[in-house]
């Protein structure tokens, strides 16, 4: 198996700790653009009697609305619908991009899932957790927010504190792990198909099977990330 590098630039602007993975930047832009274009195309020519793309859009909207509704009441939840729907579509499209194709240029992997990078997924999960704290304070007040760390009993405070970081880590790393592992196995199988006729036959069928399974995992992980984000937010904003 050949090892591919990543287009990483170190010491940006001469700052020793500042670095960038250009592949990630590219894929973030590509994924965002695809999500935006698909959403806007789907929302064109909206009619009372939905047809074609509008049906898909409404189905996605109802699906995400269902996720939000499962975790909190709609009055509180409707303000998180844009966040949930963007999380879902962005992660879904990002997952699919890596499953369908992987692009290598000049020995460096440029085209892969943005969600196969722990930095990206942890950014998303941190954003969700920070938003949950922000809305927790905004919707229930600072008193309630602080009190929630000491209920039902005060000595649970350290555990509750750890919980916040654990949530962030598990939320991000779950997505990264699933997609990264899927990508690694796909890359292995691709390498196997290039070893010869027997390798091709032995690799092609598992490759197709694993690709199909990765599509499934990509969908499931997008769903899990969205619903867990909503659960964490609901945990902070709803009055028990």
């Amino acid at each position, binding site marked *: 198996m050949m090892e591919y590098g990543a287009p990483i630039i170190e010491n940006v602007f001469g700052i020793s700790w500042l670095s*960038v993975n250009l592949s*990630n930047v590219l894929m973030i832009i590509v994924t965002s653009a695809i999500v935006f274009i698909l959403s806007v195309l789907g929302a064109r020519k909206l009619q009372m009697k939905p047809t074609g793309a509008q049906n898909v859009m409404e189905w996605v909207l109802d699906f995400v609305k269902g996720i939000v509704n499962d975790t909190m009441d709609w009055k509180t939840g409707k303000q998180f619908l844009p966040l949930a729907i963007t999380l879902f579509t962005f992660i879904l499209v990002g997952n699919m991009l890596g499953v369908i194709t992987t692009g290598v240029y000049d020995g460096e992997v440029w085209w892969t899932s943005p969600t196969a990078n722990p*930095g990206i997924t942890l950014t998303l999960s941190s954003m969700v957790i920070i938003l949950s704290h922000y809305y927790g304070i905004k919707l229930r007040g600072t008193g309630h927010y602080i009190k929630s760390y000491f209920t039902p009993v005060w000595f649970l405070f350290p555990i509750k504190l750890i919980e916040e970081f654990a949530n962030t880590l598990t939320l991000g790393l779950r997505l990264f792990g699933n997609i990264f592992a899927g990508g690694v196995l796909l890359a292995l199988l691709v390498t196997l198909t290039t070893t010869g006729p027997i390798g091709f036959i032995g690799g092609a069928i598992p490759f197709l099977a694993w690709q199909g399974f990765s599509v499934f995992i990509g969908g499931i992980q997008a769903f899990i990330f969205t619903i867990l984000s909503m659960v964490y937010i609901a945990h902070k904003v709803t009055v028990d």
Partner: protein
Amino acid sequence: MLGGFHLIDMAVMLFFFLILVYLVSKFAWGPVMNMMQEREEYVANEIDAAEASRKEAEKASAEALERLTQTKQEAQKIIEDAKSAGVKQEQDIIASAQKEAERIKLSAQEEIQNEKDKALQALQEKVASLSVLIASKVIEKEISAQDQDKLISDYIKEVGEER
């Protein structure tokens, strides 16, 4: 590199994600949701309108039924009126016919009586003239002087007694 993370990647991710949230909710999901809301309201309105028109139709039908019953009753009444008017007219006609017949009968009887009287009178006159004629003939032939005297005296006597 800081702890294995590329900070610019993370910043780009955050930046693009927040922009994406804003853009898709403004240009895609917002309009879709508005349309769904609009449809929901439309459907609710349609249901209300259908309910209202159903009620109206029920009311109209009840009214029509009532009108129909009323009309039937009126028609019945008209028929009965016509029947009773017919009966009355029939009786009137019969009564007037009877009266007329009575009148004709009476006048006919009167005329018969008149004719009878007239005939009687004519007959009496005829009888009187005939008897005078016969008497004169008889007298001419058979009366004697003696009888003539007697007759005259009797006559005078009668006249005198009558006085």
